[in-house]
């Protein structure tokens, strides 16, 4: 069963068909949300909310890339979550708990304990650097440099012009570079700038 057929079935209200799409894209959606929001609980909420919204809005889906379509919903959910977070900023306790989540990285049984520690360090620094960016730039940097989308795709997902994508990415990436250069001692030796 190809994706078009699954989408068609889901559009007729087949929740099992829709869940196959959820399973296929929820990790991508969650990782985008996590990098944008910097909080796993918020990211999980945003992802759940996105797929629920997606199910209800599936009638509006008019072909094209389902991945781009659902990511647009995810970015909108992220903006909603960011609004909520601005109203109720997370307490330092939450941040500590977040740091203690040792199981939060994907397990890779082939890697050594040292590699795992390095990966965790990298994860932490990247997220801290991303958190310093303005939201608009952060979303574009996440979509481009973490998820590898083209400018066109990002323009579609974020509903802005190509020029806006270019300038946001240019400025966001420059800020990331500045942060990583300034905090290079926190980075694993192999990836230091």
């Amino acid at each position: 069963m190809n994706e078009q057929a699954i989408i068609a079935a889901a559009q007729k209200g087949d929740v099992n068909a829709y869940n196959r799409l959820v399973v296929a894209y929820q990790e991508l959606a969650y990782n985008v949300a996590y990098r944008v929001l910097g909080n796993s609980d918020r990211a999980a909420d945003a992802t759940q909310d996105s797929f629920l919204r997606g199910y209800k809005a599936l009638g509006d889906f008019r072909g094209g890339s389902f991945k781009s379509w659902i990511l647009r919903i995810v970015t909108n959910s992220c903006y909603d979550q960011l609004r909520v977070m601005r109203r109720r900023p997370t307490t330092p306790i939450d941040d500590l708990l977040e740091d203690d989540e040792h199981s939060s990285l994907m397990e890779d049984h082939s890697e050594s304990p040292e590699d795992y520690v390095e990966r965790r360090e990298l994860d932490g620094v990247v997220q801290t650097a991303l958190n310093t960016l303005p939201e608009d730039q952060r979303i574009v940097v996440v979509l481009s440099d973490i998820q590898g989308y083209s400018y066109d795709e990002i323009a579609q997902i974020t509903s802005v012009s190509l020029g806006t994508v270019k300038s946001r990415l240019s400025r966001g990436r420059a800020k990331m570079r500045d942060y990583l250069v300034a905090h290079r001692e926190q980075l694993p030796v192999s990836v230091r700038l």
Partner: protein
Amino acid sequence: MSRSSQVNTREHRFTAERLCAFLDGELSIKDARRVDEHLATCVECQREMTQLRATVDLLRRSPVRPIPRSCTLPPSMQSEQARHRRWNTAYAVMRGGMVAVAAMLVLSLSVDTAFRTGLVQLPSEAPAASAKDYGVMAQQSEGVVVTQVVEKIVEREVEANVETELDGEAEGVVEGEPIAALAAPAAEPNSEGEAEGVSSLAVPSLKQAESPAPSDTVGAGSPQEGVREALPEASTESEGGSEPQAEALALPVVRSEQPPATAVAPAEAPAQPEPAVDVAAVQPVSEPQGRGAAWAVWETARLLLGVLVGLLLVLAAGLLWAGQKRRA
């Protein structure tokens, strides 16, 4: 500042603004060549380029996180959605039905009105509709209330009654008094209690007819005959509106299902002198002649109307119920 360093500054700025897109291969071939040429000569831009590439590489390597909980929807969403669809279908069907019934109602009403006002006539029918009829038509075609039509129907029935009475009286021996009694209420055909007026008309004439011969026997050619013929019409047409009178009449009355058409028919043939009060003068709306066929159409239309109104009400109730169920 030398000319070459001026050019260099311009190219440096140009490149600095496009390094990001250059890195992503999103520049036009022409711009990319220009950036490439500047990079070959500018150490600063080279360093910037290296750092940006390292940043992107680092971000690309950032670990993927497993999702803490699955976002698949519960199966209950399925039934909810399906139920939603069922209701939507039911709703659409009922809405369609409502529209169809409403359309039929309007159609039958206008056909009915057209027949009643004489605008539309069977080929044999001669009289053209009066100006008043056109006025009524215009009023009604503007979508004005059903009650008007109903009033009109009552009016027509009253007229039919009056005619019947007159015919009966005309044939009867008793002259003068009953006609005068009839004429008085008939002279105000637009009063609200017309149906009542007609039945009360029947009462004095019954009394007059019965006073000379109180027994129930029907003498052929007797004065009562004409009155008795007229009475069933009065009692059937004014049913519900005037129970006491109807009961008072009940004894001598032989309930007939005869349509008024038979009662009207004699109007074409009367050899008797016209009564003092002419019906046409009282009610200026010209009656379509030869109502036999037309009357059947009216009756059918009226029956249809009743059925349609009933259907409409049932559908409205269904819609309301479905809407509430949906909201719940």
